[in-house]
């Protein structure tokens, strides 16, 4: 009962702080007489949704596809590569330093090249999201797979357990908290990657729309686009968080 009340209180406080921010924003604009092209009111921002020319639904879906596509690809490839590393130590010693060096490249700088190689569009922007969020997943997964108690390995070996048993019963479940910590970082990066991709070259998506309305100084629409991008990111993050709750025991989670 007490616990329930406490969590209810936490949610209530979180909602209130968000509402207060919107309220402060509203009063700042109204009382300060701020021009709409500098800072639109919350009301004006929502009204921007009514401009059908901006094709909000389509643009949001396009950006969402880029974010989710790039992210899922990064999770699959990232975890896959980390697994290969843990199975073949030599491969890790050979490839990992290369990955570290490549990761030093600011991914944003690759944008113009990606456009040269692949034209622009949803696919190349997905690649941008992938490139920017793939490395943290490899890194944390590889680390998690390495973190096995030597005594626990002895326990399994004393029973003549196989490598596969060590992997499925100890290594992989033990690595899950690390994998999720990487996936959470990557979720935020993926959004940034997709938007940067759209800034550099695209004909659809919320990032593209922002550049269009910037020309006409429709600041309200820019605000709305930022909010929608944030919502997309929050949805992705929420899904990852939910999966973590489902798969990782509370005590093992990495905060």
């Amino acid at each position, binding site marked *: 009962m007490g616990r329930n009340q406490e969590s209810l209180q936490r949610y209530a406080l979180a909602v209130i702080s968000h509402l207060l921010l919107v309220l402060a924003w509203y009063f700042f604009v109204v009382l300060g007489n701020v021009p709409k092209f500098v800072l639109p009111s919350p009301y004006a921002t929502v009204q921007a949704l009514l401009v059908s020319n901006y094709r909000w639904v389509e643009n949001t879906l396009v950006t969402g596809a880029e974010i989710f596509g790039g992210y899922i690809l990064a999770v699959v490839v990232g975890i896959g590569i980390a697994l290969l590393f843990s199975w073949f130590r030599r491969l890790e010693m050979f490839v990992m330093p290369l990955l570290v060096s490549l990761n030093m490249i600011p991914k944003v700088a690759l944008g113009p090249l990606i456009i040269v190689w692949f034209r622009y569009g949803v696919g190349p922007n997905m690649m941008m999201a992938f490139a920017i969020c793939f490395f943290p997943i490899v890194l944390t997964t590889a680390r998690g797979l390495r973190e096995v108690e030597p005594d626990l390995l*002895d326990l399994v070996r004393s*029973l003549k357990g196989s490598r596969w048993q060590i992997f499925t*019963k*100890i290594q992989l479940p033990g690595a899950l908290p690390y994998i999720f910590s990487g996936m959470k970082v990557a979720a935020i990066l993926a959004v940034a990657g997709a938007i940067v991709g759209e800034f550099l070259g695209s004909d659809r998506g919320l990032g593209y729309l922002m550049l269009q309305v910037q020309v006409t100084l429709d600041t309200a629409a820019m605000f709305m686009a930022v909010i929608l991008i944030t919502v997309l990111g929050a949805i992705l993050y929420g899904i990852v968080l939910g999966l973590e709750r489902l798969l990782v*025991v509370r005590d*093992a989670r990495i905060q």
Partner: protein
Amino acid sequence: MSEPFIHLAGVKKIYRTRGVDFLAVSEVTFDVDAGELVSLVGPSGCGKTTLLKILAGLHSYEAGEVRIGSPTQPFDPSRDIGMVFQQPLLLKWRRVIDNVLLPAEILGLPMAESRSRARDLLQLVGLKGAEDKFPYELSGGMQQRAAIARALIHDPKLILMDEPFGALDALTREKMNLELLRIWQEARKTIVFVTHGITEAVFLGTGVVVLTAGPARMADNFRVELPHPRPLEIKTTEKFGEYSRRIYRLLGME
């Protein structure tokens, strides 16, 4: 005269690191009968953990003889060893009962039977009612009890314990000593118990093997003629004191 369950003769182990030889274990000769609880006691660096791993078949050795099992007590190295370490090493993501079942899963034992056996074992180690808890919900002593149940699940003939109570506070440790004697008598297992606690070694052991460091070798091996069951008060008896002093002398602390 029947054959001993464990027979060690002149066992010697050398570690080689960067071309330098390091003598980890030497001159180790002792026998353990089936159903005995033998304490291996000595300072750090005396090779007691190494010796335990040799018994577990996890380490090779350079010289000597290691034989486990006898015609009356055949020994299968893949399923007759249970291990308990200083840390409980329970899997955080498994409930207590599923942690206990880990060795049964690895050995591919029938699960329904193992599960009911796991419940019995949790009752034996005093964890009745904690089957469905997660390790983080248990105290250190309770986690170690679960680890002992895990070591017993596949009904091994030999239990190897490496300072299992070393990380517990003094009072819990005394309590766990009593519990271990009770479990040992009920489960009728052969136990090799590594410790650096001299009173613990005497209190638990039917026999004590004393190892010294620098160079690592076996210094003594004697039987502890104290009756069972042993209450804590036995530590104040003259005989108990003699055994303890004997070890203190060997370790150069008297």
